[in-house]
C-alpha cells in the first residue's frame, strides 16, 4: 500500500471516528412510560373529568391516561 493511500485511509478512519462521536449528543426521554396494562386501556386525556366522563365521552370502561 502506498504512503499516500495509507495516509488517506488513516485520515478517513480518524475523521469518521471523531466525527461520529462529536455528532452524538442525544438525551433519552425522561418521562415514565406504561410498559403494559391488564384490563385497562390507555387513552388520550379527556377535556373534562367528571363523575361519568367515561360514559359521556364514549370511552372504554376502564382507562388510564398520562398527566404530567
Amino acid at each position, binding site marked *: 500500500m502506498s*504512503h499516500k493511500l*495509507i*495516509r488517506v*485511509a*488513516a*485520515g*478517513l*478512519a*480518524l475523521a*469518521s*471516528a*471523531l*466525527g*461520529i*462521536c462529536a*455528532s*452524538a*449528543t*442525544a*438525551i*433519552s*426521554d*425522561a*418521562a*415514565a*412510560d*406504561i*410498559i*403494559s*396494562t*391488564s*384490563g*385497562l386501556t390507555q387513552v388520550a*386525556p*379527556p*377535556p*373534562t*373529568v*367528571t*363523575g*361519568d*366522563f*367515561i*360514559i359521556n365521552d364514549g370511552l372504554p*370502561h*376502564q*382507562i*388510564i*391516561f*398520562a*398527566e*404530567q
Partner: protein
Amino acid sequence: MASPLVTDTGTIAAGTIVNSYFFAVNAAVEAIVNTSVTFSSNVLGIIFQEDVNGVLFPNFASSDFLGVPGTSYQESSCRFCGFETVGQAQGLIDTAGFTGNVANFDNFYSEPGDFARIIIDDPIAVPGPIAGAGSPGLILASGGLLGWWRRRGRNPPDKASRERPSPLPV
C-alpha cells in the same frame, strides 16, 4: 415538586421529580374487575380514597397540579368518585396498591366512576448512546493510529529536521 405530596399510600418528599397517570373505571352496568398497570419507573404513591360519605380525600384536589393542563378536573366535588374502601360487603371493597413499578386495582364500580391518581418516579434524563464511542469507533480510531504509525515508521524524520536551529543569531 417544591413541597411534599401526601398520597393515600404515603408522603412523597419535596424535590422528587414525578410523573402522574389518572386511572378511571366507569360504566352504566355494575362490574367487578381486577386491573393492573406496569410502568417503566417505580410507583411512588396512589391517591384513591374517599370517606364513608363518599367525599374524596383532599389528596385528590391537592394533587390536581399534576393534571393535564388542558383538562378540567371536577372529580374533587364528585361524591363516590373515589375508591369505596369501607362500608361495602366483603368482595365489593375497592383496593389499590403497588409493588415496585406495578400498580394493582380491585374495583366494584358503576356510576359514578372510581378514580385514582398514580404518582410515578420520573426517570433521570441520561445521555443517549454515543455513536462511534463503542467498538466500531475504537476500531476506526485504532486503524487511523496504525496507519499513522506505519507511515511514521517508513519515513523517519531525518536528524537535520529534528534539530531546531537556534533562534538567536550567532
